[in-house]
């Protein structure tokens, strides 16, 4: 053993899983995906398991599918594993019963994650694992990265020996993504512990025609029960087997493992019972408390199922009088959470029972700190300790939360704590991982890293938490008190409370382009005061310019890393420089002397160019400038702003009263004004041809055409430039292209799309466009001109207000401009069911809601259920609406028959005749409501009238849309999608096809093209993309279109309009370029890439309109011309394809040739279907 390495929990799990696994059947889900990705990568590069084989990794269409294949593979006699979390684990439950029922030794490694309830959470808690405690799997918990490595092995070894499948779990993100220096297992040591006889028996029991048996029979009441009970003995043996393997592991590693490990005072009266990553924090807190005269302890649960009361009692000191059981899950309506209930039940029959209370902590990765743990012990000291308590939140509604009287700092003396504020993709996280590796691999120090990311995909914030120390680091919580804080982005000054938690005398390094003399003006008063009052050692460095100077472009990471080593003094500077240079040699040595030299220079400049700032005394008295606070709704002030300032943890439960069901108001994104663009478009009106294409393609709805009446034009601010509007219906108006510089991400697709040779849009530094902010505000105050031009044309569509704006998508996102366009057309009567994925993240990441309302307060109503059920969820919305609308029709008919006066009868009759026509019902709505509000003076008629008014939200025919990505439509949701489309219901399905699981980091889907490199297709996808569109046309009654906005904007508009108008199911598949494609020309060109995709025959445009059959026309219309450009050239424009030529050239050649052939065949097929010979 004794091989120390720095790695995260997922990698530790992969390391041991790989050793014992022959087949892995998986499906990607955060935060477990990296485990399977590691296995896939190691296998692709030839690593061998302990049986001398490469692991066979397969990606299924869902976790349900993955678990089915795990089951089958186990039946075939192969040791099989999977990796999952959250809903994924829940989808595996049916097979978990089967696998355990059939005593098959599979192992599931689970990075435990919250299960979606009122909201989705990708973060850690035990609600997923706790949902499987009844399945018959053994549940084994690890509390930290080292435990994942050690107990992960115990899970496999015990499963093989006991025949009981194991679920080994650890906390999502906190452990799965925490980087620690740990000791790794040598596969030879693992091999020695395997019960090879048990494996032989397992293989002999495998299904085989050589000795055939039948499994999975249907049993009647006579034998099912007995048969079920017959496996009891296997479960009885498990604790002993696990204990034995834990002893063996302890012997090899020197680390003490038991089913339950006790930590703390041997005579403790007050003890916490817990499992998972919190146990490390509890241990650290116990050290602190016991060091301060208390006598407390922790009972750490490893083997949760089967639960061994005997082992529990053996581990717990007999002195214990009070127990606090912590659960990282919530079971509403239960007497208590599961671990608590188990402990209570265990004690029920015992004579000596401690007082037992239970509490919840850490749901959805809520940070659990030593101060909170102290509060749990403090609670136990009370005469009547609170039961069913919570920690980490302020519950001011049902008052469950425990009060924290004083914050404590429990990290052992000598631990150096560092915090880094970085910008997504700026290299900060990578540099910090490197620093941990350097220190971890080259010194006897321990190192820990945990990284926080943004919930937006553009302009993302990263916060790195690094600890270094001579002892094992058990602080499984965010840094509360830092010795060192660095901010790598000057834009964060004033935006975040950067110095929060910096110790007295702590060090602060700011990367900025400001000179010392500018700091007086640039730094906010609270920062100045903090630094002056807390004796902060303050440094500045202009790493941005240094990096450019020495040829490193935007890469400031090496410079900042060197500054960190100089200032933080984790190790001696000379030693640090030596190690940094060694690391540079190792990373870049083979890549050329110049690159090594540049990085050497970065190290030197990062040390030499640091400027120590003398903090003037006057900063102690710095006062904030009085700024007039902008008026905003309470929700914005009390929820959105604190969350965006990284202060969401402080929001109390009462803030959510009234929104307990997870409801958020629309349009909150408009208040964010993030100002993240490096460049924003500047309108050159002389060159503008008023085509509105810039607005049409904008992914963030930040550039829009406005029409002004003469009066409005007169009142416009001075800098509000305008043109006479072009077009017959617009002759009385002025025209203006307006941008919102603070909402723009700077992708530049607008300027790139602008048709004139002399562009009417030029990308410029945001400070040159500052005046546009007031112009934007003025433009938004203009009267709506929605009916001036019909939205049947590209130009006309853009005079309609986007009811989707400022989403969190990546700059240049190929998906979101489609969503915006649809809201412009139907937003005011639209319902959206959105599959989990990128579109649900940019569409609804709290607190930012981009779907918004029009001047009448109407807009898209948006909801996300799950990943797999999206079509069905949307279908349900349609069914619900239809049913209530049918009721409206019944009431309307009744009222007409009863007599309601000529006007009302007329309007109701018209409504009945047109009730399936969205636009007509929208027009009828005001008149209908107005007339229904008038008393009829007939009791029965007035009753019907009031009943109708109660249902007025259903008067307008809703446009029901189902949005989702290709992972949903092609894979996990395909069965449901197919069913819903087959139902014949009037529903519109829109697929954002990025050809990969974009949201979870680029895993291959059935939409992934042949030859594309993606996770689980590292050597290029070997089979071609499913032609979902063509498949669906075979129904004959489903409207189908394949579109690509940048290739043919009019076809896109036409397809959307036709789909919505079609009174049946519609499916639109839209090509959506994505950061996962690695577009070599950059995300500025996403629109032009779609054009090139069509021109090269990579993507084809068609519409299949069943209505045409009624006109005796061919329903299949091919909108693509014969490809005129080279497909190979198109492929080489993207990293996902071009990289294959560099990594697997012979495979690339074969696959790309096949891709060319396939593209030709596909075009030929379409051409024939379109009837053009």
């Amino acid at each position: 053993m004794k091989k120390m390495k720095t790695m995260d929990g997922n990698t530790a799990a992969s390391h041991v899983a790989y050793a014992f696994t022959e087949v892995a059947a998986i499906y990607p889900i955060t935060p477990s995906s990296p485990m399977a990705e590691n296995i896939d990568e190691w296998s692709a590069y030839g690593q061998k398991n302990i049986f001398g084989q490469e692991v066979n990794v397969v990606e299924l269409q869902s976790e349900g599918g993955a678990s089915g294949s795990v089951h089958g593979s186990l039946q075939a006699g192969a040791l099989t594993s999977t990796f999952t979390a959250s809903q994924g684990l829940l989808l595996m439950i049916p097979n978990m019963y089967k696998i355990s029922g059939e005593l098959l030794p599979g192992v599931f490694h689970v990075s435990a994650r919250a299960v979606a309830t009122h909201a989705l959470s990708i973060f850690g808690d035990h609600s997923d694992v706790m949902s499987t405690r009844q399945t018959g799997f053994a549940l084994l918990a690890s509390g930290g990265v080292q435990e994942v490595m050690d107990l992960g092995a115990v899970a496999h070894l015990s499963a093989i020996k006991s025949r009981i499948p194991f679920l080994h779990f650890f906390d999502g993100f906190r452990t799965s993504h925490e980087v620690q220096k740990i000791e790794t297992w040598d596969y030879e040591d693992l091999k020695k512990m395997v019960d090879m006889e048990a494996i032989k028996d397992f293989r002999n029991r495998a299904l085989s025609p050589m000795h055939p048996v039948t499994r999975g029979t249907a049993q009647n009441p006579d034998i099912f029960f007995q048969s079920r009970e017959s496996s009891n003995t296997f479960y009885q043996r498990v604790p002993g087997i696990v204990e034995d393997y834990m002893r063996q592991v302890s012997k090899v590693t020197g680390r003490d493992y038991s089913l339950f490990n006790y930590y703390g005072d041997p005579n403790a009266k007050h003890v916490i019972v817990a499992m998972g990553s919190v146990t490390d924090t509890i241990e650290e807190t116990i050290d602190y408390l016991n060091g301060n005269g208390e006598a407390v302890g922790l009972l750490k649960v490893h083997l949760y199922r089967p639960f061994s009361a005997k082992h529990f009692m053996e581990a717990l000191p007999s002195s214990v009088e009070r127990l606090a059981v912590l659960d990282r899950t919530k079971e509403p309506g239960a007497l208590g959470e599961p671990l608590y209930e188990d402990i209570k039940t265990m004690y029920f029959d015992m004579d000596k029972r401690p007082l037992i209370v239970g509490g919840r902590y850490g749901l959805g990765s809520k940070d659990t700190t030593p101060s909170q743990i102290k509060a749990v012990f403090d609670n136990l000291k009370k005469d009547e300790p609170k039961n069913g308590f919570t920690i980490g939140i302020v519950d001011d509604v049902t008052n469950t939360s425990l009060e924290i009287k004083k914050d404590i700092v429990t990290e052992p003396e000598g631990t150096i704590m560092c915090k880094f504020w970085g910008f997504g993709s700026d290299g900060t996280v990578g540099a910090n991982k490197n620093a941990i590796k350097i220190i971890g691999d080259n010194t006897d120090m321990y190192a820990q890293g945990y990284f926080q990311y943004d919930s937006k995909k553009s302009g993302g914030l990263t916060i790195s938490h690094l600890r270094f120390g001579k002892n094992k680091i058990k602080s499984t919580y965010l840094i509360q008190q830092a010795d060192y804080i660095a901010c790598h982005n000057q834009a964060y000054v004033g935006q975040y409370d950067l110095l929060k938690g910096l110790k007295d005398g702590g060090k602060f390094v700011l990367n900025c382009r400001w000179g010392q003399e500018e700091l007086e003006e640039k730094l906010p008063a609270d920062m100045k005061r903090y630094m002056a009052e807390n004796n902060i050692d303050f440094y500045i460095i202009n790493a941005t310019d240094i990096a450019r100077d020495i040829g490193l472009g935007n890469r400031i990471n090496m410079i900042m890393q060197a500054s960190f080593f100089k200032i933080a003094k984790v190790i001696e500077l000379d030693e640090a420089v030596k190690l940094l240079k060694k690391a540079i040699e190792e990373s870049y040595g083979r890549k050329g002397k110049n690159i090594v030299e540049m990085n050497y220079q970065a190290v030197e400049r990062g040390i030499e160019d640091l400027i120590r700032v003398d903090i003037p005394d006057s900063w102690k008295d710095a006062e904030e400038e009085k700024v007039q606070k902008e008026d905003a709704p309470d929700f914005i002030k009390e929820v959105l702003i604190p969350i965006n300032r990284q202060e969401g943890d402080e929001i109390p439960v009462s803030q959510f009263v009234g929104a307990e069901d997870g409801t958020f108001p629309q349009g909150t994104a408009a208040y964010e004004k993030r100002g993240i663009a490096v460049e924003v478009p500047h309108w050159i009106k002389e060159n503008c041809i008023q085509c509105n294409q810039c607005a049409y393609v904008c992914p963030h709805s930040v550039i829009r055409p406005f029409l002004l009446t003469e009066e409005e034009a007169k009142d416009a601010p001075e800098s509000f430039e305008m043109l006479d509007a072009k077009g017959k219906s617009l002759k009385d108006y002025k025209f203006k292209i307006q941008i919102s510089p603070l909402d723009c991400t700077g992708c530049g697709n607008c300027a790139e799309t602008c048709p004139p040779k002399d562009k009417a849009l030029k990308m410029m530094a945001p400070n040159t466009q500052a005046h546009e902010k007031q112009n934007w505000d003025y433009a938004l105050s203009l009267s709506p001109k929605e009916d001036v031009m019909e939205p049947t044309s590209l130009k006309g569509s853009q005079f309609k207000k986007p009811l989707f704006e400022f989403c969190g998508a990546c700059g240049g996102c190929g998906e979101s401009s489609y969503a915006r366009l649809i809201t412009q057309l139907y937003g005011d009567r639209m319902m959206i069911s959105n599959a989990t994925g990128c579109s649900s993240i940019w569409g609804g990441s709290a607190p930012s809601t981009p779907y918004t309302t029009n001047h009448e307060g109407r807009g898209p109503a948006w909801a996300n259920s799950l990943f797999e059920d999206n079509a069905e969820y949307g279908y349900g919305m349609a069914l619900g609406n239809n049913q209530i609308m049918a009721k409206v029709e019944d009431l309307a008919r009744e009222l007409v028959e009863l007599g309601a006066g000529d006007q009302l009868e007329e309007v109701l009759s018209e409504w009945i005749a047109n009730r399936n026509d969205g636009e007509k019902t929208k027009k009828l709505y005001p008149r209908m409501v107005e007339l229904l509000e008038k008393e009829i003076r007939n009791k029965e008629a007035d009753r019907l009238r009031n009943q109708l008014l109660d249902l007025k939200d259903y008067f307008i025919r809703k446009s029901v849309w189902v949005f989702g990505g290709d992972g949903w439509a092609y894979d996990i949701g395909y069965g449901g999608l197919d069913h819903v489309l087959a139902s014949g219901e009037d529903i519109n399905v829109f697929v954002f096809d990025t050809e990969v699981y974009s949201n979870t980091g680029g895993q291959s889907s059935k939409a992934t093209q042949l030859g594309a490199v993606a996770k689980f297709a590292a050597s290029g996808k070997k089979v071609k993309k499913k032609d979902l569109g063509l498949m669906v046309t075979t129904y004959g009654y489903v409207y189908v279109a394949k579109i690509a906005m940048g290739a043919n904007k009019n076809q896109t508009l036409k397809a959307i309009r036709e789909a919505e108008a079609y009174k049946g199911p519609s499916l639109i598949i839209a090509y959506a370029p994505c950061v996962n494609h690695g577009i070599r020309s950059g995300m500025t060109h996403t629109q032009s890439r779609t054009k090139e995709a069509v021109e090269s025959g990579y993507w084809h445009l068609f519409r299949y309109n069943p209505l045409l059959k009624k006109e005796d026309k061919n329903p299949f219309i091919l909108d693509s011309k014969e490809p005129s450009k080279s497909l190979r050239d198109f492929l080489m424009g993207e990293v996902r394809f071009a990289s294959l030529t560099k990594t697997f050239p012979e495979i690339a050649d074969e696959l790309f040739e096949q891709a060319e052939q396939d593209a030709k065949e596909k075009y030929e097929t379409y051409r024939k279907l379109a009837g053009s010979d």
Partner: protein
Amino acid sequence: MARLNTTYMGLELENPIIIGANNLMANIENIKRMQEAGAGAIVYRSLFEEQIELEELQLVDRAQEYDDRHWEMIDVFPNIHHAGPKEHLYQLEKIREAISIPLIGSLNCINQDVWVHYAKKIEETGVDGLEINLYSVPYDIELEGTSIKKTHYEIIEEVKKNLSIPVSVKLSFFYTNPLNVIKEMDGLGIDALVIFNRLFQPDIDIEKEEHSSRFYLSSKGDYRLPLRYTGLLYKNIEADICSSTGIFTGKDVVRMILGGATAIQCVTAIYKNKITHITHMLKELEDWMESKGYKNLDDFRGKMSRKNLSSPFAYQRGQYVDILLSKEPIIKDYTI
């Protein structure tokens, strides 16, 4: 009818026109066209060690461009590894299968161990010979010329020792005495010498005030430098001489063979005049030979070389002669 065949570095060539390494070869169809147009042999594009290194760096950079942005998109591509020279070698294998004329690999490295490693890999693709490109772009003011030469000799020795196919050396003109360097290399057993490698020089864009690199082709008349050295080296070294640079016409080919070349390499000629130009060059060569009554190349090879000329001035004071040829009858008198 004149016979154009020749033996170059032990390889039987139908004619002396070898197509030098160039980017048209990125498309295998172009290479087939070169064969169809009559090329005597092909030197495939160089395998550049630096290019592989930079590609590797670029691959990582591009794959990681959007990393660390979001909790679920900590990375967007699998951890892919550059396959080193595999792409190049694979292309070579394919070309080997596609053409029947001699195929020569080309190599351009920095580190000595890589020279040998890559050379062996190229040999394994089935090529008929290997051309190694030796040059040094001085940037270190302390570095002495002798150490550069020493390194070059060591590379040749190592490559020769490890390969069984013939090896040619394409070298730059920038040695204090190229003749002596060539003689030393000849002594190390090289099978052919290709003179010379053209080095691209940096330029400055005065508007943008930044460095620029431009690709430039050779010009008519550039053949004179290799011509002179061909003439000087003929029969003074064991290795075959392949003259390169500025050879545009069949007449230029004639000049080189008169100077003593075994074969010639051309690139710019086909860039400027399309691949089919090879056929015209061969026709011109053949017509000239027939007009002169030569039956094969050996009939006139080296006829105008230093060895076969009585006057010392044509080669020894070549620069002056080139410049002053028509203006100073007195020298002209001496040189005739």
